[in-house]
């Protein structure tokens, strides 16, 4: 019995050794049978122009991330970064800075555009309560959006260093929130305002003459102007074109729910930045002319009424239409009569 067991064990060991030997031989033979041509065909080594084109365009490509629309390498990102950081950002500062400088210089040299004659005290209703409410709401939202927008573009160079991380974190979070929620409201109101003032801003022949005379700066005579002069019309049409681009691009950025790609967002961002910076620069001019630049202009938009002299000087064609409805001098608070403002508005 004892020897039989030993024999069996030896056999088992032998068997194991034999099996190992066979396996090893098999492995070696496989290795020897390796076909380098086959290996070559399986090797990567194919990174050529076509591959990079595929990588760039996201062709023949799958990705293990859920809902992923990203290509392997997004080359447009760097282009966007360069255009935004190296061109739009400095250009915006230059545009706003030079606009401010021009206005300051203009004010110092030319000064306020005063009324040529004494005020008669007779008042004409120029802007209805609805129009004034609309204007000031849009104006307020515009300023809020401009300041928050500027903070998004330039704030990091100023406030973080000046006031520290905690202040900056709250400021910039509030900035984005405000900008994104106020933006659509501004967009809708601006469209309503454009619709409301469309008819009075349709171009007329005398507008060309107004521009040639620089709105009255060239020559002695004031150029003809209807309810809106050519300068106001220009501002209107800038808002109706550039402003519309601001609204559309802003909508694309604010509502990323329609399958916008990164490329779409980059374009929308560049459009939005450029157009809104243009609007801001022109708005500076509008604000200057409406406040410091022209005597008697601001009261039209605050009280709704303008002086007869002002109307005659700046909007002679409109004045001719509505002069008979002017309030009497003794009336301290002329009655609000919206009809006078809306009845006749020759442009």
């Amino acid at each position, binding site marked *: 019995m004892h020897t039989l067991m030993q024999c069996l064990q030896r056999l088992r060991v032998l068997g194991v050794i034999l099996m190992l030997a066979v396996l090893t031989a098999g492995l070696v033979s496989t290795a020897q049978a390796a076909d380098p041509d086959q290996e070559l065909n399986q090797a990567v080594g194919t990174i050529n122009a076509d591959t990079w084109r595929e990588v760039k365009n996201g062709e023949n*490509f799958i990705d293990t991330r859920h809902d992923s629309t990203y290509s*392997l390498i997004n080359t447009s990102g760097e282009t966007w970064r360069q255009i935004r950081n190296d061109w739009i950002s400095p250009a915006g500062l230059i545009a706003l800075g030079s606009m401010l400088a021009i206005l300051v210089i203009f004010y110092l040299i030319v000064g306020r555009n005063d009324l040529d004659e004494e005020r008669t005290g007779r008042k004409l209703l120029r802007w209805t309560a609805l129009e004034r409410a609309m204007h000031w709401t849009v104006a307020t939202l515009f300023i809020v959006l401009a300041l928050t927008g500027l903070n998004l573009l330039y704030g990091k160079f100023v406030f973080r260093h000046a006031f520290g991380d905690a202040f900056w974190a709250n400021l910039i979070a509030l900035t984005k929130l405000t900008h994104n*929620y106020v933006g659509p409201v501004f967009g809708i109101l601006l469209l309503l305002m454009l619709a409301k003032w469309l008819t009075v801003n349709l171009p007329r022949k005398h507008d060309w003459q107004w521009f040639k005379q620089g709105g009255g700066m060239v020559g002695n005579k004031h150029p003809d102007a209807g309810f809106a002069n050519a300068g106001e019309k220009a501002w209107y049409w800038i808002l109706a074109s550039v402003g519309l681009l601001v609204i559309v691009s802003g909508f694309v950025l604010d509502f990323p729910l329609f399958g916008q790609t990164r490329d779409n967002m980059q374009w929308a961002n560049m459009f939005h930045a450029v157009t809104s910076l243009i609007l801001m620069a022109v708005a500076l001019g509008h604000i200057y002319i409406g406040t410091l630049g022209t005597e008697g202009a601001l009261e039209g938009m605050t009280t709704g009424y303008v002086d007869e002299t002002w109307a005659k000087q700046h909007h002679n064609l409109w004045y001719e239409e509505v002069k008979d409805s002017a309030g009497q001098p003794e009336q301290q608070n002329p009655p609000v009569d919206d009809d006078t403002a809306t009845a006749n508005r020759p442009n």
Partner: protein
Amino acid sequence: MAQMKFLCDAERCIECNGCVTACKNANETEWGIQRRRVVTLDDGQPSEVSISVACMHCDDAPCMAVCPTDCFYKTDDGIVLHDKDICIGCGYCLYACPFGAPQFPKQNAFGERGKMDKCTFCAGGPAETKEEEYEKYGANRIAEGKLPLCAEMCSTKALLAGDAQTISDIFRQRVVYRGHKDGGWSSVDKAQASAPDVSANLDNMAYDATRAEK
């Protein structure tokens, strides 16, 4: 100082997604956030190739350059991190990033995206306590002297993480061993390999140990 980098050896990547899973597990990222992804080109064709991608911790990081909040910073090890307390979720980093690394937990109206999340090279982020750090940014393995878990768990060691010099040396050795004439990402034309004169071109392209040198 070390300059930490990832390097994925596409020759070795077998698209097992182990790195993706390891990352998700190590960092316990939010639902829907997957910091690492595996991209496969020409899936199912002979020229199929896969590569694992996440934040590449760029030297000149576009995300840092465009961030309106300036919430990004680079550690001494060259790792690009960001402060979620300052991030406003504007999405600009995603527009700029070449690799689609930044992700957002939401994508709602009025640009409500939540705080951006991306690969931290397993280096955590700015926080008061360790718990807060883990909650916001995931693991800080670097602080424990460990490398990112994705690379550590890569079964074929395709994904390398570490000091740029070290991992590029490893890759260079592999390339030399493989015998590519022009390096790992060579510009050799595969068309030549499948052509009848494959043997003639072979020495210019690749060989292995079983093939006798001429």
